[in-house]
């Protein structure tokens, strides 16, 4: 509508701008992915021919990512952390959705803002504040009752808690938005037909929320997987992939094996994102 009112050179220029913007968006991702297939020891031009060595080769100097033990270990730890963070965040996100959509209690608006706040705290601050509290508690217990609690020291548990502290906000917002659209007469109908509270929850309300819960879980998984800022301060000896890659970049410099990891991660998160979109689309069809 509006487009027709403007002169066409303007629209053409506008379109070119949009295209240029998407080239800007794609460029670093393409360069990060493409050099994984370059048959060279450095991720740089000129192009030396196609190779899959950086994925599958088992000999130095071109040790492929699937034979690189430290990278695989990082991938494994990232996976474990992301699963726990996603499960925990979806659970708390769901209880929060019920709390804020159905619950009536004093100070509800204040608590709602408290729920959003973790999203606007810099990740670095979340990391150090949790580190400080956990270490203080551990030191205190050690000094007073001589109790050594290993899990309060930097490690997987602290990484999970640190990431959960702000990812829970994201899942809460996603699931709350879905619960707000729920038609409560459906529950009433089930009650009138004699269903118990638990049964209504299981057969009516939770199935309605399921697409949002799965989508929120996928988002939580991906955000956890790619998190660096919060993780950096809480990491122990079990370093997740982003930390391992950063170490490699700082110590060895950029090598094409990092491009191979980038490529695999991009394909993996692309597929997960696609899955969450398909689930969301299903939801709108219902």
């Amino acid at each position: 509508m509006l487009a027709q009112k403007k002169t066409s050179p303007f629209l053409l220029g506008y379109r070119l701008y949009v295209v240029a913007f998407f080239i800007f968006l794609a460029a670093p991702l393409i360069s990060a992915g493409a050099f994984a297939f370059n048959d060279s020891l450095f991720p740089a031009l000129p192009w030396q021919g196609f190779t899959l060595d950086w994925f599958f080769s088992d000999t130095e100097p071109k040790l492929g990512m699937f034979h690189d033990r430290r990278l695989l270990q990082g991938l494994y730890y990232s996976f474990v952390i992301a699963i726990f963070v996603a499960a925990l965040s979806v659970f708390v996100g769901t209880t929060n959705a019920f709390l804020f959509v159905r619950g009536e209690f004093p100070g509800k608006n204040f608590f709602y803002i408290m729920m959003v706040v973790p999203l606007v705290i810099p990740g670095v601050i979340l990391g150090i504040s949790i580190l400080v509290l956990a270490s203080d508690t551990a030191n205190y217990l050690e000094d007073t009752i001589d109790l050594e609690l290993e899990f309060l020291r930097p490690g997987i548990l602290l990484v999970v808690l640190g990431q959960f502290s702000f990812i829970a906000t994201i899942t809460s917002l996603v699931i709350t938005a879905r619960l707000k659209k729920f038609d409560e007469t459906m529950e009433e109908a089930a009650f009138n037909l004699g269903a118990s509270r638990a049964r209504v929850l299981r057969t009516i309300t939770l199935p309605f929320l399921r697409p949002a819960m799965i989508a929120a879980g996928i988002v939580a998984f991906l955000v956890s997987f790619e998190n660096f800022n919060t993780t950096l301060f809480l990491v122990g000896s079990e370093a997740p992939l982003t930390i391992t890659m950063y170490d490699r970049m700082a110590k060895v410099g950029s090598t094409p094996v990092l491009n191979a990891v980038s490529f695999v991660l991009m394909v993996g998160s692309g597929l997960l994102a696609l899955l969450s979109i398909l689930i969301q689309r299903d939801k709108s069809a219902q």
Partner: protein
Amino acid sequence: MQNKDIKRLTLILLFAPFALWILLLIILPHIGMVVLSLKEKVAPRVYEYSFANYLDFLHEPIYWNTLLRTGSMSLLVTALALLIGFPIAYYIAKIAGPRARGGLFLLCLIPLWVSDLIRSFGWILLLRETGVISNFLLWTGLIGQPVEFLYNDAAVIVGLVYTVILFMIVPLVSTLDGMDNSMIEAGYNLGGNGFTVLRRIIIPYAMPGIVAGCIVTFMLSAGSYLTPILLGGKNSSWFTEQIYNQFITRFNWEGGAAFGMLLLLFTSIVIWLGLKLSGQTLANTVAKS
């Protein structure tokens, strides 16, 4: 009566996870950080309460210069992200056809699913001396020898704008999407030109989205660690780097906690000012996007 008890019990059960989360992972850690930042080491394992860590910050120009630099560069990044992102969001929400709209929106989201590290890595490969852009310019003959585009402020800003722009576009698209096209048409029919319509109708309508986008972009930019370090190199002097140095390199947790509080205060004040100046609240901006 029994029903009322059940309701109350449900409420308490639902409140428990929320309370544990906010109390144990947000409120208590921040209180712990404030307390720690007010401690001063006077002898090994002996501490006194004082403002020494904050005074250190004031007495050392490098520290507050870094904070000011981080803040001003983040404001610049936010402004650039808004300027570059607004036309894109407008195109997606209002000009693109209904089928292209979904596709373009998804394209916008793709970099969101890739970690900061990979995005910066991609920029390094493009910008460095042996990188793609330098090679391309050599090939076209525009430059005679390889040029280093990395390790300067421009590279940091490009990388940061790239990292945060999606968080600007997404809330903008969702607010512009809810805007009725007839409002824009009415503006034109009443004799307004493109600029007046933009200034008097579109921007006021999109304000919640603009504020939400600006808050998140500013916060992400000021709190980012990887992009300034990887793209700016040794001279990036980003404030998060100072926090990391205090904590991990110098093992001065008291100083690091004070720096963390300062960064938090600084970003909160900027966000609060932004909300006040635009007449918005946190609940109707960030929470909605």
